[in-house]
């Protein structure tokens, strides 16, 4: 009997794991991360389906319904102009998400471009880019965002740009150090040996390998971006008035109505904290999964 006659045993372990089983495994292994993912899912759901969840418009005023206590009709009460707090918070999710995702995306885009160029090209280009990054990084995040927002003027898209700029140096740093390590790998040398252009190597071979750290840093920045948006709007330099922004809601109500209508202060704050908390939890779990160095 030759070895070929033996029955072929296919083991379960040989089969590639399905995506769902992987997800199930990680949900069990990272309970905190799954809570974070759930919070984020609710948050995104509210932002996307705001029109269907709410009864009142976020900017609809009603002078007969001013400063109502939370209760039937208006679940979370109304503000000094008779606007429904619940509607404003749900629509505020849209603004926070737009600013958070928008600025994180822009920040990552420029950060990756700078980091990849800096790390791959090296030489004086690296030196110049790193010094620019140093300059950007020596000013605290919120201070830089504040100054940018003030210079650009209050508008939704300006806020996104203002928050994205302080995020660039962090992404650029991480991508650069990754690129430096990847540049020396054998597959880069192989690609060069078959005559690939340097640009193609950088974009097709080095860039995809920096995706994992990029995702980790981008989720971490998403929370920071949402928090910065709330702070900017709180100071009156973020998203302007007709948009229902959580930070703005706090600053409007804080001064005059803290004593008479505390729900104006409590609920937007809860919304900010929960969304940032969810993003942070999710980002932490993602880092544990994607960064093998820190895997426990």
């Amino acid at each position, binding site marked *: 009997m030759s070895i070929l006659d033996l029955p072929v045993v296919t083991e379960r372990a040989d089969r590639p794991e399905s995506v769902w089983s992987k997800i199930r495994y990680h949900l069990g292994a990272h*309970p*905190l991360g799954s809570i974070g993912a759930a919070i984020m899912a609710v948050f995104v759901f509210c932002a996307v389906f705001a029109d269907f969840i709410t009864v009142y418009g976020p900017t609809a005023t009603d002078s007969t319904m001013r400063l109502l206590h939370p209760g039937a009709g208006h679940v979370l009460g109304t503000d000094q102009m008779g606007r429904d707090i619940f509607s404003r918070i749900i629509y505020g999710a849209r603004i926070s998400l737009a600013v958070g995702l928008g600025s994180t995306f822009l920040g990552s885009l420029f950060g990756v471009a700078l980091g990849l160029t800096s790390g791959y090209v090296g030489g004086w280009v690296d030196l110049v880019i790193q010094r620019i990054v140093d300059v950007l990084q*020596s*000013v*605290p*995040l*919120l*201070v830089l965002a*504040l*100054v940018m927002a*003030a210079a650009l003027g209050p508008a939704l898209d300006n806020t996104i740009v203002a928050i994205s700029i302080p995020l660039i140096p962090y992404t650029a740093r991480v991508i650069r150090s990754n690129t430096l390590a990847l540049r020396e790998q054998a597959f880069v040398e192989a690609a060069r040996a078959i005559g690939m252009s340097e640009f193609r190597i950088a974009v097709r071979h080095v860039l995809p390998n920096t995706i994992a750290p990029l995702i980790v840093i981008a989720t971490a920045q998403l*929370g920071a971006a949402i*928090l910065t948006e*709330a*702070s900017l709007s*709180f*100071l*009156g*330099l973020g998203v302007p008035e007709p948009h229902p922004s959580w*930070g703005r809601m*706090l600053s409007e109500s*804080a001064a005059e109505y*803290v*004593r008479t209508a*505390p729900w104006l*202060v*409590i609920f937007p*704050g809860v919304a*900010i*904290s*929960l969304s*940032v*908390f969810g993003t*942070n*939890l999710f980002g*932490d779990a993602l880092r544990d999964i994607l960064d093998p160095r*820190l895997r*426990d």
Partner: protein
Amino acid sequence: MISAVKQNTTLDYVLRVVSLSGLSLPSFWLGLLILMAFVAYFGALPIYTDPPKGFWNTLWLFSIPAAVVGFRSSALIMRLTRSSMLEVLRQDYIRTARAKGAPARTVNYRHALRNALLPVVTVIGIEAAFLMGGLIVTETVFNVPGVARFLVEAIRWRDYPIVQNLVMFIAVVAVSINFLIDLLYAVLDPRIRYAS
């Protein structure tokens, strides 16, 4: 640190959630909540109206904003100490120390914590510099006339020379603190020497 030694226990999870929530709460909201609590329970609050008289009065006035800002920083430092400790606890010399029969307390404090503190010190330095940013909103909430509040006011007035100077000042403070931290490394870790 406790969180690291007892990794993946309930205590670890509780501490991690507390520290993460500390990072997630916007400092202005926390400040407002504390102000509300003070008004509700004591009917009054130590708020900055006139320049404080004397040292103790100053300390009393600044204690609450300081606590609000400090909560965030301590949460950050807690997270860092945890991850740094986790890394150190896996090192060979920790196993050696355990193997020679050193008590757990000695291993945790003398061998692990001392080595884990180096990256933590870096972040304390960065955080001290970056607190300037966190202070902007806190100073606004508590009406403290500090540098950060002055910056916001200057932006509101569109007084750009003042804005430029204040940003420059904040950057200089940040860079000098980082420099001091670099010098501190040499003191903390005898292996680090700066070439002259």
